[in-house]
């Protein structure tokens, strides 16, 4: 099961801040991950947008990167600042 977190405004789109889900077999990289999550949460393309970055295991990754069920995944929208 992958642990997936949605930060900032993306938590409103996903309807949750955190969830655990098994990744579908065809979701092997961040491109497929974005498309799957966008469909799952009816994101209307918001999860595909590159301004929303992805972190795997607490590190923002260059995309596309490989993903697996063992990963901690974070969807990171532009920062608001402190």
């Amino acid at each position, binding site marked *: 099961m992958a642990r997936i977190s949605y*930060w*900032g405004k993306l938590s*409103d789109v996903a309807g949750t801040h955190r969830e655990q889900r098994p990744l579908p077999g065809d979701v092997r990289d961040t491109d497929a991950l974005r498309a799957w999550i966008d469909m799952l949460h009816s994101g209307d393309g918001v999860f595909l947008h590159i301004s929303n970055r992805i*972190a795997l295991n*607490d590190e923002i990754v260059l995309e596309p990167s490989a993903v697996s069920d063992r990963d901690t995944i974070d969807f*990171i929208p532009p*920062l*608001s*600042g*402190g």
Partner: protein
Amino acid sequence: MFLSVQPISAPELLAEFEQATPQAGAVVSFSGIVRPRNAAGVKVTQLHLQAYSPVTEREIAKTVEAARARWPLDGVRLVHRIGDMTPGETIVFVASASAHRRAAFEATDFLMDYLKSQAFFWKKETTEQGAEWIEPRAQDYADARRWSPEKETSDARRQ
């Protein structure tokens, strides 16, 4: 400790910091306070601040170390509130101590520019008209660029 879910008192933090840096000749502090009205002039009832722990703390620690490497500092204190706040509450406290004022001023400014533009925080503002996540401001990015190596190089060329 960089993040606090409990209210923070800037006067108390400053007093503690000054006691902890008796060798300093200059202490500069900055306190950020939750504004009573937003940019559109609408009354703010609550501000929620979300941090991406432990990444937020890890990256702040790196930036504090970068400040220590760049300026001759005797100490740095940085505390940021997270969670729910109301107008008038202190949201952030940053202080730097040095032998002389310039380093303390610049290090505090540098750390605040980092917090405003690059730290992993998201803010949700609740007003009488509803709640919305706050988008980043171009001015905060412009302020942060003042400290970039490219800016230093171009400044040096002009001198």
